[in-house]
């Protein structure tokens, strides 16, 4: 209440009923209105249908949720890992750190692979965005952003630009030039504008559009050239922390996860929220589509990762152990979808067998939280970024 309205008393004609009365100067959505106290009362009841109050809305919401669960449970006739019992178990895993990329002065928050399977862009808390060659560990480009906590970075499909953003509430695109001496910051283009921090960004199939998610609870689709907002997606009731686009063959949808414990699937063209899943017990830090596009995985602060099937409209697997008590900050699938790599806040990376639900390996090496995990486009390796200022390539 306090941050939305404040009152001062004047006397004059009311804007609503035109009677001369003591007026209350109220600001509604940033516009000053002068209503007499009677009209203020009447207005406070607007927006509520007959008999509707917050409580009745809540009660209706609860009963609909129960009904939804019932509908979903009817189709839950078998568990994924039961059907997967007849598959061969995976052999022993030998995965080691093959490259360590050092150069960031502070926590690495996000990274992305280029489609050429060799270049990586990473961003960190100190505002630096670096483009590396993963084979040789050389740094190819470095940009200093005007803000700290660059939480999102993405490589353009063509490999000619990178997008990044964070506490500046914007997403900026930097075209990469071959000329090493050129000042990249001069060519910067600000594309997205949110009212809170940028948590994640991704190019769509072309360099021309970017999808962003923000701490203000919305996701948005932007045109890079003009900076125009093409579509916005409302539906989360708290910060949106992560998003992922569906693999191109399956159409124009994307999934987002946020601090309201919900994972939502959206249609990019209409802006509609198509499906919603709320089974996690805490913030969802990361969402990733399954390679087939029919399912997605989430990693959350409740120390579990879960797999949701879109066609069955329910959660079909939970990846957790009693010994894991720290949140999962980032998840990604291997090329075939058989393995799920998850980075945790206890400095380790767990590798899960997606179908059987068992843990296949734990990878140690980082000296602080793992903030981001991504498999390379051809599936030969995966890269992890951590709060210990380094990135590691595992194969």
């Amino acid at each position, binding site marked *: 209440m306090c941050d939305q309205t404040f009152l001062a008393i004047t006397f004059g004609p009311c804007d609503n009923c035109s009677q001369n009365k003591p007026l209350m100067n109220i600001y509604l959505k940033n516009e000053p209105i002068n209503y007499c106290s009677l009209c203020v009362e009447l207005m406070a009841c607007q927006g509520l249908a007959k008999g509707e109050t917050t409580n009745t809305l809540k009660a209706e919401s609860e009963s609909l949720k129960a009904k939804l669960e019932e509908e979903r449970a009817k189709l839950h006739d078998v568990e994924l890992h039961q059907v997967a019992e007849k598959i061969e178990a995976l052999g022993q895993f030998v995965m080691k750190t093959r490259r360590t990329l050092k150069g960031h002065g502070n926590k690495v928050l996000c990274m992305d692979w280029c489609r050429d399977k060799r270049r990586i862009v990473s961003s960190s808390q100190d505002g630096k965005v670096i483009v590396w060659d993963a084979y040789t560990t050389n740094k190819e480009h470095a940009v200093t952003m005007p803000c700290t906590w660059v939480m999102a970075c993405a490589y353009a499909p063509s490999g000619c630009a990178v997008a990044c953003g964070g506490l500046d509430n914007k997403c900026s695109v930097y075209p990469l030039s071959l000329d090493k001496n050129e000042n990249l910051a001069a060519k910067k283009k600000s594309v997205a504008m949110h009212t809170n921090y940028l948590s994640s960004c991704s190019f769509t199939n072309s360099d021309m559009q970017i999808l962003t998610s923000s701490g203000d609870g919305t996701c948005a689709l932007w045109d890079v050239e003009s900076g125009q907002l093409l579509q916005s997606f409302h539906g989360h009731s708290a910060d949106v922390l992560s998003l992922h686009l569906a693999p191109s063959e399956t159409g124009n949808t994307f999934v987002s996860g946020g601090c309201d414990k919900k994972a939502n699937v959206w249609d990019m063209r209409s802006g509609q929220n198509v499906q919603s899943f709320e089974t996690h017990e805490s913030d969802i830090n990361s969402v990733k589509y399954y390679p*087939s596009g029919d399912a997605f995985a989430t990693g959350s602060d409740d120390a579990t990762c879960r797999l949701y099937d879109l066609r069955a409209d329910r959660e079909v697997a939970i990846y957790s152990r009693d010994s894991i008590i720290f949140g999962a900050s980032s998840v990604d699938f291997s090329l075939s979808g058989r393995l799920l790599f998850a980075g945790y806040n206890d400095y380790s990376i767990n590798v899960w067998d997606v179908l059987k639900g068992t843990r296949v390996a734990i990878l140690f090496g980082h000296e602080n939280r793992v903030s981001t995990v991504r498999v390379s486009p051809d599936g030969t390796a995966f890269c992890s970024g951590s709060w210990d200022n380094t990135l590691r390539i595992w194969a």
Partner: protein
Amino acid sequence: MARDMSDKEILKMELDQLKVEVNTPRIAVSTTAPEIIAFVEGLSAEDPLVKGVPEDKNPFKEKGGCIIT
């Protein structure tokens, strides 16, 4: 956006969403699970992280020591 909306508005938004969702078409897990498994089995033969990659083909594995000619 979500932070600027009152509790009532957020609840209304959630309610409308739930009404839409109760009516979405769904398929049984017993159908979709085998399909997911078939998809994975089909691809996992080619998955480098599952089956491993021979040392000389993998660009990330360390090459041998220096060769002086």
